[in-house]
């Protein structure tokens, strides 16, 4: 038996693993997988097999130091491996501080920083960045197959009727509902048209206004804010995004929005709402996208999708039991490549009505009657206790069980008529818990790290500068040496030769990235070509009736149309990645340049005082240039994500249908392959053209970025120079030495204790 100890910090994404008290071997696959920066959920599923491989043992005792949610992911994996008889293992949790109390300590530290002695920490840019990181939205995209009850589920979660639920198939606008408060307040809305201009605002949004907006063809997007009851707004600002179905969208951009949320690079949670009635053609395309995203390895990409099987309250006795039904849904999803989905059976409409009645909303008599029928049905049929079928870890199941017990014990009325109990049976509680879980596990940890990052680098930079100043003041005897150092750095910074070297390095890096992008674009084109050839293979050899030609062509058109947004999003991913890679490469080169500034100073090691430009600039630099921030701030600044504009994409061109139909009018039966070949010649050409366009666009973007960056680098150079000048003055000023020593000492002490506090936030 081997003792395994795992310590996992979900904020810093740091993992420590020891086996029998010893660190992992240098070449350990496990060590590789769990290297800094990787999330537990990315490798935990492989843990059992790697342990068995690397330690040639099947018996383990695993001690985990971390949060409960992470621990449950671990135990889930271990239990499965045990069931498969791959290992025998016992797990134990050493509890860590949970995410919930982090938020307050962050605020406390921030306030202290604001009161501290450094003006640099009070500057507006930093405060804004902090606020931005703190208000980081967490997006939940709600996607549904036709008439699956999407609006009803959203309404049920809001506890009121806000989204138009009738004619939901016609929803052609994007609605974003943002949680901004924990108090009961009216929902407010801003309404935008297709040009993204504000059309109207509402202080008290109602269903009837929503109905009107929904049928107004000019409306493209509605931004709603208010209280989403099931999450507390000071955790993370949850944004529920209701996207139109793939076919009913008014605005071609919308299709892309959905496609993007489903895409691999998205981190948003996706609620996929379906009924047990299986899919239509439209849903198929949607599922394909989901399957692709889920196939990205790691538990998180699976956790990201919550499959709600709605309307299960309509199940009749003759439809069989819930487990059988869910098995069929699983088999169906599997046939689309979606493995191990997180299934959540639900009855959204009863949940909505029960909540509305509970909230004291004015409801129709018929709704009250109908709710009564539902409540009884849900309470008396074990098959309809949907909370017991939800895919949730034990701790959350226990929580819900506890809520159920409370609901039952507090109830005194007639049998089976307990609404609170029925509400839990609707399964909506479980869905909400799943969303909260995801937020806790992924969004909140990332957010906390993000906030802390906004000032930790700045603190380091200040610390370095302060220390250097302190040293300079203390070591007056080194004056000559120091001035020499500063001078040498100045000289090197101004050297034209060095500047050219830097320029070349930058250009090379960008060129290399562009070459890589080219390869990726080719891969994408191939992927879509494969999809098309598969479609052709499916039909090859069959002959269709002349009457069906029009129909087939229509289907093909639809098929190709549905590929379009996916294709565009994939290419956009390349462009975005290209952008991020370019900026990272540029930063790396600039870092190198800073590091090289002191290369020529050979005797620096002899002195106690050292000037390190890289450290001196550390904060400004991460602060201004982190690639993520770059993409994000662009988004904020432009509103409409100019970086990812649709500008370069050409819509797929189709052979005119009439022409195709006429072409085959003369024969009775049509060879489908020939038909499809004709049809897809144009589509394929279009794929190639768009791939080329995307690549060109990516190059243009990276050029722009490098110009931008070069500009910024010049500014940074200036900042560095002014810092050096300040240091020079410290070295030469003989008069105020004592005062300065005292002053910097005090400031350093303050910095030390603040840094300790900030670091403590990320401790587990």
């Amino acid at each position, binding site marked *: 038996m081997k003792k395994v100890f795992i310590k996992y910090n979900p904020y810093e994404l740091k993992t420590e693993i020891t086996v029998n008290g010893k660190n992992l071997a240098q070449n350990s696959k496990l060590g590789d997988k769990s290297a800094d920066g990787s999330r537990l959920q990315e490798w935990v599923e492989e843990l059992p097999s790697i342990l068995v491989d690397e330690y040639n043992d099947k018996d383990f005792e695993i001690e985990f130091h971390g949060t409960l949610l992470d621990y449950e992911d671990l135990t889930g994996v271990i239990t499965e491996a045990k069931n498969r008889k791959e290992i025998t293992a016992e797990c134990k949790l050493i509890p860590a501080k949970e995410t919930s109390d982090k938020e307050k300590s962050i605020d406390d530290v921030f306030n202290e920083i604001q009161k501290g002695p450094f003006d640099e920490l009070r500057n507006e840019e930093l405060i804004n960045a902090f606020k931005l990181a703190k208000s980081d939205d967490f997006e939940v995209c709600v996607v549904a197959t036709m008439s699956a009850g999407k609006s009803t589920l959203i309404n049920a979660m809001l506890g009121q009727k806000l989204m138009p639920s009738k004619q939901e198939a016609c929803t052609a606008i994007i609605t974003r509902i943002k949680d901004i408060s924990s108090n009961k307040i009216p929902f407010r809305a801003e309404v935008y048209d297709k040009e993204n201009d504000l059309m109207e605002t509402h202080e008290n949004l109602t269903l009837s206004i929503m109905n009107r907006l929904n049928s107004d063809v000019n409306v493209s997007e509605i931004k709603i804010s208010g209280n989403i009851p099931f999450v507390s707004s000071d955790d993370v600002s949850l944004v529920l995004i209701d996207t139109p179905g793939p076919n009913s969208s008014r605005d071609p951009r919308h299709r892309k929005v959905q496609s993007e949320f489903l895409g691999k690079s998205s981190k948003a949670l996706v609620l996929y709402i379906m009924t047990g*009635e299986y899919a*239509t053609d439209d849903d198929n395309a949607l599922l394909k996208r989901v399957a692709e995203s889920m196939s990205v390895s790691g538990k998180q990409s699976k956790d990201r999708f919550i499959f709600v099987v709605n309307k299960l309250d309509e199940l009749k006795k003759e439809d069989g039991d819930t487990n059988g039904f869910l098995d069929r849904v699983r088999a169906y999803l599997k046939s689309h490549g979606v493995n191990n989905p997180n299934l959540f059976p639900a009855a959204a409409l009863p949940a909505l009505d029960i909540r509305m009645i509970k909230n004291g909303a004015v409801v129709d008599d*018929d709704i009250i009657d109908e709710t009564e*029928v539902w409540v009884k049905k849900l309470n008396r049929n074990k098959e309809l206790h949907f909370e017991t079928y939800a895919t949730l870890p034990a701790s959350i199941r226990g929580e819900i069980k506890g809520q159920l017990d409370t609901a039952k014990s507090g109830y005194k009325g007639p049998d089976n008529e307990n609404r609170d109990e029925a509400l839990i049976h609707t399964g909506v509680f479980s869905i909400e818990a799943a969303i909260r879980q995801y937020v806790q596990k992924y969004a909140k940890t990332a957010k906390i790290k993000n906030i802390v990052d906004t000032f930790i680098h700045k603190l380091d930079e200040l610390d370095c500068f302060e220390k250097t100043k302190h040293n300079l003041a203390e070591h007056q005897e080194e004056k000559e040496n120091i001035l020499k150092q500063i001078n040498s750095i100045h000289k090197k910074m101004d050297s034209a030769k060095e500047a050219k070297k830097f320029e070349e390095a930058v250009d090379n890096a960008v060129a290399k990235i562009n070459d890589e992008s080219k390869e990726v674009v080719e891969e994408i084109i191939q992927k879509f070509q494969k999809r098309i050839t598969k479609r052709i293979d499916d039909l090859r050899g069959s002959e269709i009736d002349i009457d069906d030609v029009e129909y087939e062509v229509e289907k093909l058109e*639809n098929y190709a149309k549905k590929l379009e947004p996916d294709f565009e999003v994939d290419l956009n991913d390349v462009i975005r990645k290209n952008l991020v890679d370019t900026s990272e490469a540029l930063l790396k080169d600039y870092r190198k340049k800073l590091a090289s500034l002191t290369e020529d100073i050979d005797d620096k090691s002899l002195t106690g005082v050292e000037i390190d430009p890289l450290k001196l600039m550390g904060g400004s630099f991460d602060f201004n240039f982190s690639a993520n921030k770059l993409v994000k701030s662009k988004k904020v600044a432009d509103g409409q994500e100019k970086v990812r504009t649709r500008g370069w994409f050409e819509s797929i061109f189709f052979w005119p249908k009439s022409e195709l139909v006429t072409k085959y009018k003369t024969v009775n039966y049509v060879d489908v392959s020939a038909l499809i070949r004709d049809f897809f010649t144009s589509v394929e050409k279009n794929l190639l053209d768009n791939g080329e366009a995307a690549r060109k666009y990516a190059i243009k973007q990276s050029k722009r970025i490098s110009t931008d960056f070069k500009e910024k680098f010049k500014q940074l150079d200036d900042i560095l120079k002014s810092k050096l000048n300040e240091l020079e003055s410290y070295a030469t000023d003989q008069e105020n030495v004592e005062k300065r020593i005292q002053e910097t000492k005090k400031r350093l002490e303050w910095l030390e204790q603040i840094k300790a506090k900030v670091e403590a936030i990320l401790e587990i």
Partner: protein
Amino acid sequence: MTSTSTEAFHGISKDEFVTSFFISAHPLINSKEKARLLYFSVLEYFVALYAKKSKIANARLLQYRNLLVKDETTITLTENNLHKTIRKVVGDFLRPSKRERFLLLFCDIAFIIAKKTVIKNIVDILFAHLSLKKQKKLNELFNLLFNDEIIPPLYINFNSHITQFRSNNEFISKKEIRILVTATLSAGKSTFINSIVGKPITRMAQEACTNNLCFIYNKPFEDNRIHLLASRLNLNATYDDLRTAEKEADCSIASFFKASCRSQARVCLIDTPGVNFALNREHVKLTRRAIAEETYDKLIYILNADYIAKDDEIKHLNYVYKTVPGEKVIFVLNKLDHFIKIDDSILKSIEGVKADLLKIGFNNPVICPFSAYFSLLLKMKQTNSILNEDELDYLEHYVKKFNKLEYNLSLYYDFIPVENSYSDNELMEMNILSGLYGFETILYDEGK
């Protein structure tokens, strides 16, 4: 036989398939085992003699076997024991309970074999074992089966047999009304069919998996039997049997339809797969082929009132418009039980659908507002089917709901007078309010 090519009838005529026979109240079920065995053996002998190759006769015989002797080994009639055994059944004239057994035997044979010429032969054979007086009586009974004279008191015990036999004959002489049912998925097609039949014979969950046609026939009267013809013939199919069969191949089902109007029509419902099922592109082809090639008098197109048509729906409507003469098409606006008066208006919904249909080209389309689930529950209640607690709750709720003016579906059937005369009969009144009565009247042409 008027069946078209696609209907599967493996050596069984459609007339035979849709014939009812109610035997659960057979006089012998309470007799001693020995008597039942003897009786059944003779029955078996005659069927083997005259209808050995008839699938339907053997299937019916199996029903008698299940009723009377189950798995017991029967007596084999040979030349040696033939006369004696038959006499044992038909010859008893002392005990009143057995005095008429020869007539019972004859009736049962007639039920099983059902062909007039063969039955005549049986009469002749039986003569050999009967006294003159009995021969006369038998002959008279034979005649009663095939004429429509008033049944004399002498045959009071065979009233049910004779009536059943006559109803069957009358029924199969009628022209069949053939009704094709089509819909996109989740319009509630299964519930609709169940509501017309009055029994939950198809289920929602299976809807999308079914890639074949299903022919659902009604029968002359209720005999509590569902006939199923799929890979084999089953005259007493359970709901589970139906479900397994549905998935395999085209199948035929026969069951008595409990109609809310006075219909005695002979009906065949042709159930087609939902047309927008993505996993199987064959579905749409099959349904289209059926719409284009099957013989039918009416096409019922079921629309889901819950949401307005999307591309798939429009596509299918266009196909129907192009392929089927407009006067054959009846639109059913289903799921109106989901409506809530503050959110929806039935009238608006009908008008919306009408506008869509006119746009496609349908001229003056017939649109029937309907609640299939409510109708099914009503019918189940009226046929004394056992409703579970949930169903009872729903029924109660819908009765209350549909009694309100906003949901009164009878208002949209203009041939129904506003003040109906059924206010004393709650169930009938509900049939009217739920749209069931109005719709079935249109369906069975009773309104004309």
